[in-house]
């Protein structure tokens, strides 16, 4: 009867109430849970560091969100920061969907823990492999290589082939670039047997063969354990 009188607008189930939906600060862990469950609210204040790392299900954040620092790394589907966002310290955005911020945004940006400029964060195509080789700060150099992309970096700088062989997709190569002051960049180039696309994956620097590297990528530290029956 209530439903009929109300034109069907009475919800059949109780809506889960949003706790403390007021101006009181929310503990960081609770804030993460609420936002990931899309139960955050506009004007939400977080009491400290808000860690949303890896929340690929997030497409937006509450407007006028306030926190001390914000980690949105690997939030691949988060492409914009909300209006009125207030972060007092820094935003970690490696691997997020954010590809630009308006000029004069005023945020301190980090990429895998390293403070970066807008150019590094958003204009990685403008960097050359040679520019990156000349960067003395090791951590910043690592960030820049990841931003440029392993495949592009190796193409531009010219990697050394440690090993090559063939698998079901075609030729695969284990390529490395040594550094005097840092561990070598070691990558495995493989061709997907289904799509024909080349994939480049970083592997530990102590890899010696393509098979060892492919096994490591698949989760096997002992390459003898890796022998796929079917690859597609």
């Amino acid at each position, binding site marked *: 009867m209530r439903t009929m009188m109300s034109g069907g607008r009475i919800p059949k189930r109780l809506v889960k109430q949003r706790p403390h939906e007021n101006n009181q600060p929310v503990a960081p862990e609770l804030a993460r849970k609420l936002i990931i469950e899309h139960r955050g609210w506009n004007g939400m204040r977080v009491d400290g560091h808000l860690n949303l790392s890896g929340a*690929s299900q997030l497409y937006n954040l509450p407007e006028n969100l306030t926190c001390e620092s914000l980690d949105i790394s690997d939030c*691949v*589907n988060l492409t914009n920061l909300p209006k009125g966002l207030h972060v007092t310290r820094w935003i970690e955005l490696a691997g997020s969907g954010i590809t630009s911020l308006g000029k004069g945004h005023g945020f301190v940006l980090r990429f*895998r*823990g*390293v403070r970066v400029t807008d150019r590094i964060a958003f204009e990685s195509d403008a960097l050359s492999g040679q520019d990156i080789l000349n960067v003395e700060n090791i*951590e910043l150099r*690592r960030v820049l290589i990841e931003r440029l992309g392993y495949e592009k970096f190796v193409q531009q700088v010219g990697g050394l082939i440690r090993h090559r062989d063939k698998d079901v997709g075609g030729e695969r190569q284990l390529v490395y670039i040594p550094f005097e002051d*840092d*561990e070598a960049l*070691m990558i495995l180039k493989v061709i*997907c*047997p*289904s*799509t024909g696309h080349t994939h480049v*994956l*970083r*592997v*530990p620097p102590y890899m010696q063969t393509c098979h060892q590297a492919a096994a*490591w*990528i*698949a*989760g*096997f*530290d002992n390459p*003898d*354990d*890796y*022998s*796929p*029956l*079917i*690859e*597609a």
Partner: protein
Amino acid sequence: MYSNRRNSQHHQSPILYRHGDVLLSPIATIPTGVQKRSGVTLAHGEVTGHSHRIQQEDAVQLWGRGNELFLEVKDASVTLIHEEHRAIELQKGVYRVWKQREYRPDAYVEVED
């Protein structure tokens, strides 16, 4: 890392299926402490929306334990499909399912400034 070795005096690698970045290996039984998971999707592409999934919806049961995933194939065989990868037939049984990994140098130390 994932030891599913058969009983043999000679070392034999575990049976393994690779479907893009998803790997499956048969195991003897459903592990203890698992909980039922709904659906037939083994892994989602986070950006593309593509997924590695079983075509026959009523023929499988997914089981989870923390971050671990197991697939129980209840019919004689089912088909593992994806928008970009060729299909793989999986026989009746239980499989451990996991995704490939990529190396990243030691985590950067968080420097409080």
